[in-house]
């Protein structure tokens, strides 16, 4: 497989944008990414993209131009963006193409997602009695993890506090004002042990990446960020996932463990080689648990990590440097590509007030979502 480079990135600010559809926010991101790369839409040979609830990515040609290029629609839940990137990466790594776009966008209404049982092959009664609620799963996975490994509510609060502190310096973030620890801990309880400020909100946004072959990247003078790995995995037996009426007593693996292992093997790297990481933080506890599932610490060590600030900008492994989902919100189709966007900014040294010091060379992203899917990418300068 040939080397593939990220030669352009673009983002439509996350949050709420009245008057622009999800697809239009995606088109905005593509235009910005093309401009960043020094390319025109005519130069793009193919695309992969998608949204969860804002329609098909191939309609982007109505916004950007009827050049006849193939655009493959991706609909892969929270891994939509990651899957689009894998598609674009393979198209170039195989030698078939020199320039492609990976695109993700979305626009969700306010409030928690209202998934319907039939969409997940579940019986209607499961939703009728009030269990078709994603936040319950995150709370219950976390409740058990906290009891097993001695994680405290204060640590959950510190994750959210860090997110809002980082987002102050991220122009694309939604919630850009600091929130103090006491306010986070004492805010409205949503699903115990998680308070309002510890959950991300469904939102809006669009992200685009322009990927290119080595030849094209050299032409553009953009050989500084290379894709080392991109992997998506579904759940193994015995895992505990969103929307599960039952769980096996004999515990098994998790999709994140599989995706992380696959990506590290593909890159020939390990957790110690990573300089900055963007980890799925649907809620504070998810970031805590995903630190361990991705191999960056042992279960229970997160207490010390958060107390010592090791995952803050300037810590030994900065995590969610743009405030993550907690501060950016979660437009499902765009969220995974936002993480990659942030890593490209960090590797180029353009993070401004949130720039990771020490010239980071290797950057990691991780998304997780229903019904048990996980995507990991590793970029290297």
């Amino acid at each position, binding site marked *: 497989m040939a080397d593939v480079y990220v030669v352009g990135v673009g983002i439509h600010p996350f949050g709420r944008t009245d008057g622009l559809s999800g697809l239009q926010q995606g088109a905005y991101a593509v235009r910005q990414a093309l401009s960043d790369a020094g390319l025109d839409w005519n130069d793009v040979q193919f695309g992969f993209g998608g949204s969860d609830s804002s329609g098909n990515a191939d309609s982007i040609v109505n916004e950007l131009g009827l050049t006849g290029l193939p655009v493959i629609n991706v609909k892969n839940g929270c891994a939509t963006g990651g899957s689009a990137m894998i598609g674009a990466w393979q198209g170039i790594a195989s030698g078939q193409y020199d320039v492609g776009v990976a695109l993700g966008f979305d626009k969700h209404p306010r*409030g*928690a997602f209202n998934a319907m049982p039939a969409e997940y092959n579940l019986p209607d009664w499961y939703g009728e009695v*009030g269990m078709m609620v994603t936040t319950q799963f995150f709370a219950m996975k976390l409740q058990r993890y906290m009891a097993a490994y001695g994680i405290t509510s204060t640590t959950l609060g510190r994750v959210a506090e860090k997110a809002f502190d980082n987002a102050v310096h991220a122009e694309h973030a939604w919630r850009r004002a600091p929130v103090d620890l006491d306010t986070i801990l004492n805010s409205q309880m949503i699903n*115990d042990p998680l308070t309002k400020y510890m959950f991300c909100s469904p939102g809006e946004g669009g992200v685009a990446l322009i990927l290119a072959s080595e030849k094209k990247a050299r032409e553009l003078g953009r050989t500084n960020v290379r894709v080392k790995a991109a992997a998506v995995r579904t759940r193994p037996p015995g895992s505990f996932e969103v929307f599960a009426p039952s769980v096996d007593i004999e515990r098994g693996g998790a999709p994140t463990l599989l995706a992380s292992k696959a990506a590290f093997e593909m890159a020939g790297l390990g957790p110690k080689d990573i300089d900055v990481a963007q980890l799925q933080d649907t809620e504070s506890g998810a970031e805590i648990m995903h630190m361990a599932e991705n191999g960056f610490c042992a279960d229970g060590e997160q207490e010390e990590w958060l107390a010592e600030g090791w995952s803050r900008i300037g810590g030994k492994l900065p995590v969610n440097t743009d405030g993550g989902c907690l501060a950016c919100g979660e437009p499902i189709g765009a969220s995974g590509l936002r993480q990659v966007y942030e890593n490209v900014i960090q590797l180029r040294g353009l993070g401004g007030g949130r720039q990771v010091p020490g010239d980071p060379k290797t950057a990691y992203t991780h998304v997780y979502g229903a019904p048990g899917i996980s995507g990991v990418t590793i970029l290297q300068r």
Partner: protein
Amino acid sequence: MIAITEGLFTDGAQPCLIGGRHVESGRIVFPCPGGDARYAPETLPNKGTVWSWTIQRFRPKSPPYTGPEAFEPFAIAYIELTGAVIVEGPLINVAFDAITIGTPVETVLVPHATDAQGRTVMSYAFTPVQEGSTHG
């Protein structure tokens, strides 16, 4: 009075959930997958322990939720039905601050809603096992 769906639980003094046993591997799931010859219905133990829990403090969106409009927070838990499988369901008759992992519970049937014909729709829940319970 009708069940929220057929084949979900047995009734009687000690109601039980009905799971499905994978015929080849013996793995038990809940509920029993309908129309799938790989699974045979299996009556699950009435008793178990709290495996994890949370409090649902906002009204789930309707659809699909069909509970009362006047919302009261309720507890949701995963219950390890001893030796069988871990199942998800509401936890009732318990103070929210008294719930802990490992609490012994038993399966009960509870009214969930009233349907368009005025019938009471029954569903299942779990409740802490009372000390000195005659159910043993």
